[in-house]
């Protein structure tokens, strides 16, 4: 079937256009794909790699890790002991400080960072934590983040400077960063757990490591982007290399570096929360996780809200502080005027501490005053599920049977009389093939043969399913795509990555992950794209969406799961929704940004030629915004994969589940292989989409 489709599409392409050499590559690929499908009946190896060819990489890695732990355990335990001291100290300090003192200090800092509005926000949110009785848990979390961030910033600064100034280091640091940013958060925890043992230090170390990459990247990027005029003028002032770095390059790169600090804080918080999965120590992440596991949704929602509020405070305050511009008046004025905030904070904290000696309520918020409306939430959830179960379950099963299942096992296996009302026979298959071919022809007419090839691939995938497609076909098509889009380097990388998944025996799980993530990303990308287009054409929609996007992006991953499982319970569908909710933001943002940043002259020229708004959108703005939109798709996939692993908590199959199992069993080999699998999926997609976008930008004259 595919053969007829391909041939008809290609014929039309040949007839109408000059011969395009890359078309030949796809023609050969198409023939090979058809051959492989024909062979799958006769030879098993086409669909399933023989067991004896699977490399026992997991066992090897475990053996290596055992040896490593045995020889270096003392070192890591010593580091662990060393880190425990300041951390316990910080924790003790935060617990000793009366809550009004901490709140007063935070509010003053918030005022400095963002004026009265932020100060009021901080006051209200911190009071919420006090009133619902999560103060101590919040302070434990704060202590961890407070320790992890300075460590991350210091390591990141050092590595970033090294990356910038020492070429051989770059070739090690850059791939390491790629890997660190694509390996899922859970996978970090396993080696840290083995080396550092249980306890809060594991969370600290994991958070420090996890939060480093954005700092390194921003330091290196900031240093690279210091304008050449500034560097030359400093050289002409007679700077030595060291003066140039510390007095000129680093200060001039500070705005970019500060963006890195903000991202580091958010990453550290996210990881501290996730680290609760290996056992809590009375922090807020543990509170959410343990209540969620007991299906106490009211409780986990209240605790989850604390996490969201902490994240929003961290984000806004750190962004406010780091983007403050120094103004010339700073030098004038007395000591008091210059450091007013500092004095106010000091006085407020001291007054609060003094008062707390007299009034014990100010030291420990009395249990009797706690307002904890978990029961109300639980009742509401019960009422909702009791009354609307038919609706939620209908949505769930409809999506499952008509959308998810076909993508997973293909129309070939999922179309049964039970759900679809008819069985898949030859005629229906032929009808489907004809429909796909027709669509491909239409796309070929409307755009180019490349679009037609994409339609054919998608149609084939939907028919055979991600798990039904033979590995050889999948590897072939992805590798050819990578090669055509990004050149032989990307092609070889894709081939190598896919072969890794094949020969380490995680192929089927990887395909399950590809399927779930792919589906979620597809929906998120379409929905987000539409919202992005709407926001680009309507300022009010844009203003409405912006704070929502900001909030969605600051929320640590698994808080997303709470409201979803409240309504839809655990299962693949909930995972799908969680991935969509988390991954939709870049689709919205990049689409809006891409459309809004189409050169104004081009838009004006199109208007002047008499384009209707619809023509303007479809024929001018979208084509020109496409490279940017594709970067959004890329980000959507990255976030989707990150969330996919966390979504294993609510029961998904695939690599996420594998990592989760490995984590509970402290199985380093399994976790590392699965983590690498996810990272490779992410990196292969990233390379392909990035090169496509870069090439397209050059073609459109935008770069």
């Amino acid at each position, binding site marked *: 079937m595919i053969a007829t489709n391909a041939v008809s599409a290609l014929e039309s392409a040949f007839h109408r256009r000059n011969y395009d050499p890359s078309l030949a590559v796809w023609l050969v690929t198409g023939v090979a794909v058809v051959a492989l499908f024909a062979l799958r009946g006769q030879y098993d190896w086409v669909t399933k790699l023989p067991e004896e060819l699977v490399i026992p990489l997991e066992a090897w890695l475990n053996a290596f890790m055992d040896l490593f732990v045995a020889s270096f355990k003392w070192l890591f335990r010593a580091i662990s002991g060393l880190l425990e001291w300041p951390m316990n100290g910080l924790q003790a300090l935060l617990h000793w400080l009366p809550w009004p003192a901490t709140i007063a200090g935070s509010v003053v800092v918030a005022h400095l960072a963002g004026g009265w509005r932020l100060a009021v926000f901080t006051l209200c949110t911190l009071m919420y934590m006090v009133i619902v009785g999560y103060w101590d848990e919040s302070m434990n979390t704060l202590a961890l983040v407070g320790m992890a961030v300075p460590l991350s910033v210091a390591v990141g600064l050092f590595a970033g400077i090294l990356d910038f100034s020492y070429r051989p280091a770059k070739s090690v640091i850059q791939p390491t960063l790629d890997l660190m940013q694509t390996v899922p958060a859970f996978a970090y925890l396993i080696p840290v757990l083995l080396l550092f043992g249980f306890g809060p230090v594991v969370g600290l170390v994991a958070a420090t490591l996890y939060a480093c990459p954005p700092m390194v990247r921003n330091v290196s990027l900031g240093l690279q982007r210091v304008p050449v005029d500034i560097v030359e003028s400093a050289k*002409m002032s007679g700077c030595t290399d060291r003066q140039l770095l510390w007095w*000129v390059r680093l200060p001039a790169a500070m705005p970019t570096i500060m963006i890195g600090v903000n991202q580091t804080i958010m990453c550290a918080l996210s990881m501290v929360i996730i680290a609760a999965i290996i056992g809590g120590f009375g922090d807020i992440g543990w509170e959410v996780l343990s209540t969620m596991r007991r299906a106490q949704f009211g409780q986990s929602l209240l605790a989850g809200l604390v996490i969201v509020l902490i994240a929003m405070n961290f984000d806004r305050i750190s962004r406010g502080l780091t983007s403050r*511009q120094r103004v010339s008046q700073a030098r004038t004025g007395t000591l008091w005027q210059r450091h007013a905030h500092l004095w106010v904070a000091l006085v407020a904290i001291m007054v609060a501490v003094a008062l707390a000696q007299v009034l014990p309520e100010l030291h420990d918020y009395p249990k009797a005053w706690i307002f904890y409306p978990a029961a109300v939430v639980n009742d509401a959830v019960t009422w909702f599920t009791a009354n609307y179960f038919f609706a939620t379950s209908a949505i769930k099963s409809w999506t499952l049977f008509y959308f998810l299942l076909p993508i997973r096992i293909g129309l070939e296996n999922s179309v049964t009389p039970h759900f679809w009302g008819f069985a898949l026979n030859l005629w229906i298959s032929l009808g489907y093939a004809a429909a796909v071919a027709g669509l491909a022809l239409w796309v070929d007419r409307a755009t180019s043969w490349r679009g037609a090839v994409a339609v054919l691939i998608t149609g084939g995938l939907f028919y055979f399913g991600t798990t039904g497609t033979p590995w050889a076909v999948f590897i072939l098509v992805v590798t050819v795509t990578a090669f055509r889009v990004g050149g032989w380097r990307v092609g070889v990388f894709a081939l190598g990555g896919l072969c890794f998944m094949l020969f380490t025996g995680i192929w089927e799980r990887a395909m399950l992950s590809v399927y779930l993530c792919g589906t979620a990303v597809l929906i998120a990308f379409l929905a987000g794209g539409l919202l992005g287009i709407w926001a680009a054409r309507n300022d009010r929609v844009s203003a409405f969406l912006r704070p929502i996007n900001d909030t969605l992006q600051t929320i640590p991953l698994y808080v997303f799961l709470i409201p979803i499982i409240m309504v839809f319970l655990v299962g693949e569908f909930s995972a799908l929704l969680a991935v969509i909710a988390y991954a939709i933001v870049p689709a919205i943002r990049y689409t809006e940004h891409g459309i809004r940043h189409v050169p104004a002259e081009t838009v004006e020229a199109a208007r002047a030629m008499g384009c209707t708004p619809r023509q303007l959108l479809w024929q001018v703005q979208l084509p020109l915004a496409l490279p940017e939109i594709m970067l959004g798709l890329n980000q959507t996939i990255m976030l989707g994969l990150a969330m996919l692993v966390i979504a294993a908590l609510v029961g998904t199959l695939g690599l996420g589940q594998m990592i989760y199992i490995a984590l509970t069993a402290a199985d380093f080999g399994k976790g590392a292989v699965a983590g690498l699998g996810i990272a490779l999926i992410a990196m292969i997609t990233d390379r392909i989409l990035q090169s496509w976008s870069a090439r397209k930008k050059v073609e459109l004259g935008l770069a």
Partner: protein
Amino acid sequence: MTGTDQAAGQVKLFCRNLWKVYGPEPHQFFSGERGARQRGDRAELIRRIRAADHIAAACDVSFDVHEGEIFVIMGLSGSGKSTVIRCLSRLVEPTAGQVVFDGQDLLKASSKELIDLRRHKMGMVFQNFGLLPHLTVLDNVAFPLKVQGVAREERVKRAMEIIDLVGLEGREASFPRELSGGQQQRVGIARSLAVEPEIWLLDEPFSALDPLIRRQMQDEFLRLQRLLHKTIVFITHDFLEALRLADRIAIMKDGEIVQLGTPAQVVMEPADDYVTEFTHDVPRAKVLMVRNVLEPAADGLDTSDAVAETMNLEEVLPHVAGRIDPLPVTDANGRLVGQVTPHAVLNALAGKQRRKG
């Protein structure tokens, strides 16, 4: 091709056969034959460099800069002028050739010597100002002194003097982003002067400014030069700016100097069609001076109502209007130096070229 008018000052800085080639192996073209290379094979060498997919940014550039002179290098973008000025200060390492400053071969200077030279003898101004965004105007101007390790009090004092000199008093506590472009470049100028350099390098200092501001800054620049008498290399892509400021001009094209001479020489005797192209829009009456159309005084010349040799043609026009016989020309001391005929003035204004005999 060398201008002869300004032979007065000592040669402060010169470069000889300067080459800058970009590419994977730029030195292959100069190995073995460095220094021994003859002048005539420049074109052949350029051809070889380009054939090997290397970029020749500066080709066989030679010139002298005299003490107290404003030497302008003029060229369009990509002509290699910025490369040349960066070779003079070794912000860019030349591939071949010689740069000698006060008798010292700069290309042989160690990095320590180079830092020392930059700290004490060179000042440079940049097209996009190159100010440090995190420092105030005062700290920016004092930065070269800080780098040298001058004590805070001393460097503040000296920086304030220079800030006054460039007319920025009152703005010393501002940050660069709070200033207009013209003011920012004043800071850049002040900073480059903070160490009292002997050679002052200006790389398109006014190109990023609006035309009106540019004009003001040119006047300001000339005022400063009358006070300071620096030795100056000035880069511009603006031919009129070059004429206005220069004692001598080098015009560059595709990495080569196509003509080197005084403004009047360039306008009146353009070396080729490329230079001629620039001279079309020149307000000749303002650029050309009486001394540029001077002829030896004829015997029995009436020496009454003489004109000064430094008058430009616009000013002398009323004097020659309606006359046929030549006017006497005197120098600054009132001595007779020659005569000017109405015919010569009109020829010069009409752009008829006087071929050098």
